[in-house]
């Protein structure tokens, strides 16, 4: 049985069918890439899976648990974490406070209101461990908003990792990055393979072909085809979609 299954997901915005009966499966230990031209509905799909957008129809199942009816924050506790295409960190807070906030969500109640958080060494240790894993240990005291773009992206990823996800949704983790940062990010994502399955949305085809075990192509809200890199590269319709869109437009 697949780790994650999405069945018949539908999302309409007025007359626009942004997600058109999408079926998708992610296996354990797999990096599953989702590619497609702009406006294909990739981000919408991530929002449906993470629950930030309510789906009009369909269901999602993670590890045998039906998450469809759960609120987005509850899905996180079932092992479904995500990153954001537009980097979403707490810009005015230090990297340390960003990580602490992410760690705190997973360990104990956030309704505790009398004890100083600084006194909780377990939280601090977990935050530092997270910083080490994502290469942020040297910038712990810097405000997140002043970090270089590549580091902010890594922090965004670190925040998602705090949830110990079983399925990690990455919405364009390489967006806007220079080549050096991309290489670092590809390495980091590659190392995560051992601990979580990943659904990776990415425009950088280099990254996709290097990381992905399986690739699904989304066009006009529908899954056009799904398979390994060779299959997708050789697919006639995929080629026409990627090479021919400008001619049609």
């Amino acid at each position, binding site marked *: 049985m697949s780790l994650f299954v999405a069945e018949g997901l539908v999302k309409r915005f007025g007359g626009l069918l942004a997600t058109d009966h999408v079926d998708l499966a992610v296996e354990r230990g797999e990096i599953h890439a989702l590619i497609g031209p702009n406006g294909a509905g990739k981000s919408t799909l991530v929002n449906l899976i993470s629950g930030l957008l309510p789906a009009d129809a369909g269901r999602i199942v993670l590890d045998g648990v039906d998450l469809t009816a759960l609120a*987005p*924050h509850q899905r996180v506790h079932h092992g479904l974490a995500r990153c954001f295409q537009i980097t*979403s960190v707490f810009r005015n807070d230090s990297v340390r406070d960003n990580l602490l906030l992410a760690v*705190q969500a997973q360990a104990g109640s956030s309704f505790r*209101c009398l004890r*100083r958080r*600084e006194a909780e060494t377990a939280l601090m240790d977990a935050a530092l461990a997270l910083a080490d894993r994502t290469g942020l240990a040297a910038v712990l005291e810097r405000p997140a908003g002043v970090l270089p773009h590549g580091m902010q992206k890594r922090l965004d990823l670190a925040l*998602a990792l705090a949830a110990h996800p079983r399925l990690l949704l990455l919405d364009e983790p390489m967006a806007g990055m220079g080549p050096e940062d991309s290489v670092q990010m590809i390495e980091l994502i590659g190392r995560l393979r051992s601990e979580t399955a990943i659904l990776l949305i990415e425009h950088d085809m280099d990254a996709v072909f290097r990381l992905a075990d399986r690739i699904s192509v989304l066009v006009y809200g529908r899954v056009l085809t799904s398979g390994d890199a060779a299959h997708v590269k050789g697919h006639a319709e995929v080629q026409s979609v990627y090479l021919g869109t400008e001619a049609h437009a």
Partner: protein
Amino acid sequence: MNRPASDSSRVAATTGAAAVAEHPHQPFAVRFPGFARRLPWLVLAILALFPLLAPTFGLEYYVGFVRRLLIVAIAASSLNFILGYGGMAALGHAGFIGVGAYTVVALVEAGFSSAWLAWGGALVVAGLSAALIGAVSLRTRGVYFIMITLAFAQMLYYLAVSLRTYGGDDGYGLYTPLEMGVWLDGVHPDVFYWVVLVIAALVFACFSRVAHSRYGHALRGIRDNETRMVALGYPVYRLKLAGFIAAGAVAGLAGGLLASHNAFVSPAMMHWTQSALLLVMVMLGGLGRRWGAPLGVALWLVLEETLKMHTDYWHWPLGVLLLLAVFHAPQGLAALSERREGGR
């Protein structure tokens, strides 16, 4: 530290502190840690001694004034908690003050005379109202949240107007002071002042403490980036509701104290302009800053009191003050002390 040397030495010369020259950008509390730590206790001591010293300087009248200031500061602190830390722009906070005040009236009318029961009741009933109003309002965001909290507060206002038993539009006089217990009543004419001071200090200490707790950090996270907080797994709605209820309850307590202070309760105290005034005071002092609420309340009420002595047209200088604040201290007074030499 790439400021020109002459600039630094000018700063050192004007303030006479060598430490300032070395760290011209550091906040007040960092440069003078000892003083900053002791300042709250100093203020508390002065406030505690004020009723004893006032007669010497002929300031007896102002004991009552400071008492009112402290009560308003309690309400403002609770608003600062949800607005400044939680990012909830509630424009109906006076509604909870009113609920607290009318709870006192209801208990007095029902024959109870204990102050502690009345104020405790004000706290609880206002907290319950906040739970109901918050449960609905917090499903909205931004402008809609402002409008819906305003609407609820106006409903409470008109409810108070229509309550004939409690005086309706004319209000309700509390002719016999509430009893605070044998070992407090009659000890000193200003016992109520000290009770208010203790409650204000406790409320302030609690909110300061909570600000640094897990809950306080979560609340600020929601203010800064609610979507990310959801994606991190935080039960955002319930966290906000908890803050809203706590703030409503404390505002209700302030309302109960205000009822005792004025010995009079009327719907006017829960009119929406009162909510707006509270907002203005908190913003003037510094949203989401520890000292924001008391500073804003003190500045506003002291100026109002002073201006009233000199002119009937005391509104317009306050308006000018607001304009100045918007342009020169948009972060509020509390922020001003943190970066006097910074910025320019």
